[in-house]
Each structure stands twice: as structure tokens, then as C-alpha cells.
């Protein structure tokens, strides 16, 4: 029997990689390898094609200056990303790409920057920097991460949040929601990187991708003691 494998695609690894989010790719790759599965990693930048057989697509945050080159390219990829999303491809979008996966971003000047509308949300620039250690109640336990954004994201429906904020601002500092989860599209403001201290979430992405590709997923448990120890300490650190 040939080895099972998943195709991991990292979107805009050069432009949108500002807070260690590249680590999410390494984490997914290793968690597959440690279980004897293959991880085929592809890097897709501006002007490059997303592989049709993508199983998990991840993306991170970037500097404002760079988002101006990414946004038009993302528009060109929009149709394909919608198609992949409808087929149930697993996606994890953090910070800047989380915002651009929504319908639009409204700047301080009131200008509208179009997103690709895969996620039912909009983001508005604000003067408040929402930054610090963040704890989020979710289906996979307490998610531990670090947020750093000034955009306020509003979900069309708060029930579509990834989780509720226990400590921190979350999507907008007002309604207690953090992130967004629709079908297999996960969006969040959590850096850390988010999968590092949340191995349950990492395995959720892997499980959904395997189930979609092979009909079932039987993931052997891994020794995540360092992740849990790191998570216990991080959750009590000052905001």
C-alpha cells in the first residue's frame, strides 16, 4: 500500500510571512511525517498557479506595503480559490490573508480594498492596535496565540466565529468573537504561530484533509507535552 500524502500549499510565503506564520507550514509537514505520511509542500507566490490537487492551503500576514502587490494577484486567484473552497479544501488564513479572504477592507481614508469574499466578513481600519497574548475558547480547547492588528473584522454572523475571546481583543475588540470558520476555511488573527501551541487545531486541519481525500482519517496520537507545557505558561502571561 503506497503512503498516504497531503499536498500543503503555502500562499505568498515571501510577501505574507511577517510574524513567524511560516511555522504553520513546518508544523503541518512534520505532524504528517511523524505519522509516516507524506507532505508535498508547494510555495505559491504572485503570478504562480495554485496546484489543483491542493489539500491544505495556508497563508499569513504581511506589511501594509506588500499587501498592495498581493491583493491584485489574489483577485486573479479568486475564482480558483472559491472552487477549491467549495470542494472542501482545507484552508488556514492568518491576519492579512484572513482579512483579504473576506469581502473587503476599508482603509482610514474610506477607500475600499476588495477581498475575495470566501469568508463572510468585512474589515475596517481603526486607530486601535489590538496586540498581545490572546486566549480563545474553541471546540479544540483554549487556543493560545498572539494577535497584532488594527483592523476590526466583523462577521456577518457571530456564530461563524472560530471561538470566543477569553483574553484579548479578537476580531474587533467588541463582540468577543475571534476568527471565522466556514466549511473547511479557518481564519484567525492568532500568530504564535497558531498551530504551535494548538496541536489539536493542527490535527483538525489534517484530519479534515485526509477525510476529504481518503474518506477516513485515523491519526495516531503524537507526544505533544512541550506544546501543552508551553501553552500552560503562555496562557498566564500578561496581555
Amino acid at each position, binding site marked *: 500500500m503506497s503512503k498516504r500524502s497531503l499536498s500543503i500549499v503555502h500562499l505568498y510565503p515571501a510577501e505574507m510571512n511577517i510574524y*513567524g506564520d511560516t511555522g504553520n507550514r513546518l508544523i503541518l509537514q512534520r505532524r504528517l511525517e511523524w505519522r509516516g505520511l507524506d507532505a508535498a509542500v508547494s510555495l505559491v507566490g504572485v503570478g504562480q498557479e495554485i496546484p489543483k490537487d491542493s489539500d491544505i492551503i495556508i497563508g499569513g500576514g504581511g*506589511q501594509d506595503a506588500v499587501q498592495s502587490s498581493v491583493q491584485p494577484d489574489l483577485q486573479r486567484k479568486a475564482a480558483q480559490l472559491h472552487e477549491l473552497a467549495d470542494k472542501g479544501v482545507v484552508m488556514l488564513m492568518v491576519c492579512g490573508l484572513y482579512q483579504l479572504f473576506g469581502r473587503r477592507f476599508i482603509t482610514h481614508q474610506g477607500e475600499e480594498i476588495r477581498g475575495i469574499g470566501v469568508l463572510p466578513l468585512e474589515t475596517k481600519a481603526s486607530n486601535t492596535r489590538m496586540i*498581545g497574548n490572546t486566549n480563545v475558547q474553541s471546540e479544540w480547547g483554549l487556543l493560545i496565540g498572539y494577535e497584532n492588528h488594527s483592523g476590526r473584522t466583523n462577521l456577518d454572523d457571530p456564530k461563524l466565529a472560530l471561538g470566543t475571546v477569553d483574553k484579548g481583543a479578537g476580531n474587533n475588540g467588541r463582540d468577543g468573537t475571534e476568527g471565522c470558520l466556514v466549511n473547511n476555511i479557518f481564519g484567525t488573527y492568532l500568530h504564535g*504561530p497558531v498551530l*504551535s*501551541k494548538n496541536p489539536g487545531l493542527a490535527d483538525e486541519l489534517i484530519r479534515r484533509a485526509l477525510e476529504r481525500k481518503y474518506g477516513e482519517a485515523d491519526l495516531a496520537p503524537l507526544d505533544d507535552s512541550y506544546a501543552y507545557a508551553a501553552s500552560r505558561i503562555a496562557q498566564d502571561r500578561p496581555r
Partner: protein
Amino acid sequence: MYRISIIIGKSLLALLRLAGRRGSALPGLVVERINKSFLKKTIGTLPGGVIIVTGTNGKTTTTKILAKLLEGQGMRVLTNETGSNFVRGIIATVIEKIRLSGKLDYDIAVIEQDEAYAALFVNYVRPRGLVALNVMRDQMDRFGEIDATARLIAKTAESVSEFLVLNANDPRIAVISKSKADAKTVWFGHHEELVRHFVSDDQHHHGDAIEFYEAAEPDVELRTFEGSEVNVKVGSQTLAFRPKLEGGHNALNLTAALAAFTAVCSDYSKDALIHDLENISPAFGRGEQIILKNGCRIHLQLVKNPSGFTHSLRILQNKRFDLIGIAINDDYADGRDVSWLWDVEFHDVAEHGSPVICAGIRGNDMALRILYENGEVEEVITEDRIFIDKLVSQGQSDEDYIIFCTYTSMLSLRKLLKKHSTVMNEEGL
């Protein structure tokens, strides 16, 4: 008001010392509040003016080199040796060194300044010159973006009265030459052949093919640093010397300091200059060695950001260490967000083959990072006291241990190591 500030400042300093608290900037904080013109009336009156050294990596070492080179030429240089580089830290340094009478026995000040605080600092004192080394991803949670950091340094440059010393190979620094059109610009940089040793921040993160960027022909240019001899072109002549400071990054720091030196001194003793270039030893926490009573040598290396950490780890390729310690704290000065560890390349640690101990408040996060690199971690010890006790109890006289640590972890570990060591470095432990 000015004399009262000195008295209050010095009293606070004495009280803190009695309480065993050295290195506190509290006296600086207090004086900053009560007397806004303190710095202007003190270092602002020095005949040689104030030179600011800023940038993401290399500030402390470059400041130390420049100060030593100027001292070697007979100047009395006021500098903030221990790298306390926020405004209140500078004020605290001045309080320590000023006489009660208000007299400051110095000719010139060379001040290391944090990239963000330099822009504030110039509101207190107008600098004669600015040395801008580089802009790299550092504590993202404070600055938000490296372009914003570059803009802050450019703002600082606008206040300069005489000269700018700029890195010709860093485009974000090079553009600062436009900030003050009437200032003299002295360019420093490295020769194109050395480019692979100095991968830029963008290249480090994008994994691009390595390209060479040069805004202008450097006035002071690093030519080679193979073996232990460094060659630097200064104007029309070439200086050759064998410095104690090792590595490519230090060769570039020496180059930057030389460039600043030429901006300050047009007339100098070349013999004294070469002697100083060869004898400067590592600054606080930058490759210092502390020798334990049992003879074991502990090498301390400060790490602050992904490119700096990755560069520092290269020493593992050339030198054998019997134990690797990595101590990560997340206090304000360390960077609260530990995500940056995932932008550091740790294969040198995984491949070195020696036991790895992860320490500091976020030691578990560091261990996690190493595990994902398919490396092994012997132990995580988050209590510094227990960590040092372990190193002391197992260290042998012929062994070399290296500890990579963030800022507050460095301060804590040094203090603990002092109790077990026989050798003090130049600044004293």
C-alpha cells in the same frame, strides 16, 4: 533645577546600589520627568557633540568600537556601554558620570540608541552625527513593520547637524541620505564578493537568489575577513588588522565604526587606530566568555531577532560546544511575542550533536521549535537559578558551553554566573 536634578539622580543611584539594584534606569526616569532640558544642558554642551548609533543589529558592538577608537586618539568619550538604550537609560548614564558640580569631563558622546527611541531622543539633544547600521525584523510587536522602523530612523536623521554614516548595502538605510540634504554622508559597506555572508533581511525571509545591492560606492569598505585578518578600504588606503572580534557581522561592525571614526577625526594616529582595532573585545553579552571556577567556559550570545539569531548560530558550524543552551524570555525588552523564533533557522542546533537545554520563561516554546526542526532537547528549565546550578554542577574544565539568550535572560544569567566565576570581563560582571 539642573543641579537639583543631578543631586536627586545621584541619590537615587546610590540608594539603588545599596539595595543591590545595579543597572536600573529609575534615576533616568525620574530626572526625565522633572527636567526636560537635562540632556541638552549636559551632553548637549560637549565640544565634540553627540553621535548616535542605531539600527537593528550591531548597535552595542559598533558603539563600543567607535568609543574605543576615539579614546585611543586621546578623546574622553561618554558612552552607554551596557546597552541601556532607551532615553531614560542615557540620562541614567549621564547622572552616573557627571560631577556633582555639573561638570562633565568628556569631549564627545557616542550613544547607542534603540531605533524607536532615537526619534524621541533628538527632541532632547540635537546630534552631531547619526550612524545607521541596518533595518531588520526585530521586535515586531513594538514597531509593527520594518518600513515603519526605517521611517523612524529617517526622522532621527533630519535632526542631525553634521553627518550621516549609512549602510550602502541596505536599501532602507541608504534612502535616509535624502533626509538631510545638507548633511555630509559617509557610506560604509562590504565588497560584492562578500555578499553571501551578508544576506539581507528580505532575502533571508523570501529565500530569494542572493543579489548584491549598493546605493553608492562605500567610502569605507570591508574587503575581506578570511582567516583572522580583516581588510578595510578607507578612502584611498587599505587598513589590515587582526581583530579579537570574530565573524563577518563583527567585521562589518568594525567597518561601520571606522566610517564614523573618519567622519569625526580627519587627523589621527594610524598606529593607535590599528592597535585599538585589534584589541577591542566583545561587548556585554555579544560573544562574551565567562569562565566558571571549575574551568568550564560559558559563551554568552545575545539574540534579539530572526536574522541576528540565525547569524549567531553559524558559530556552531565552526566551533564545537559541549552543551547548547537557549534561554528565551518574553518581557518587554525581549519581545512579548515569541512567534519570531519560527523565522530563525535552527538546523545548526539540530545538527551540532551536543545536548540542548532550553531555558527562560518561554523555554517550552523554544523546545517545541527545536522538536519541529527534528532536533532533540535534553531538558527544559524555566527557572534560571536551577539552569545555572545544573551547568555549574556538570561543567568540566575543558568544556565550552554556549548560551543564546534574549535580553532580560542575559541580565539574569550573567548575575547568577557571577557567583560561580573567576574571571570578570572589561565592564565587570
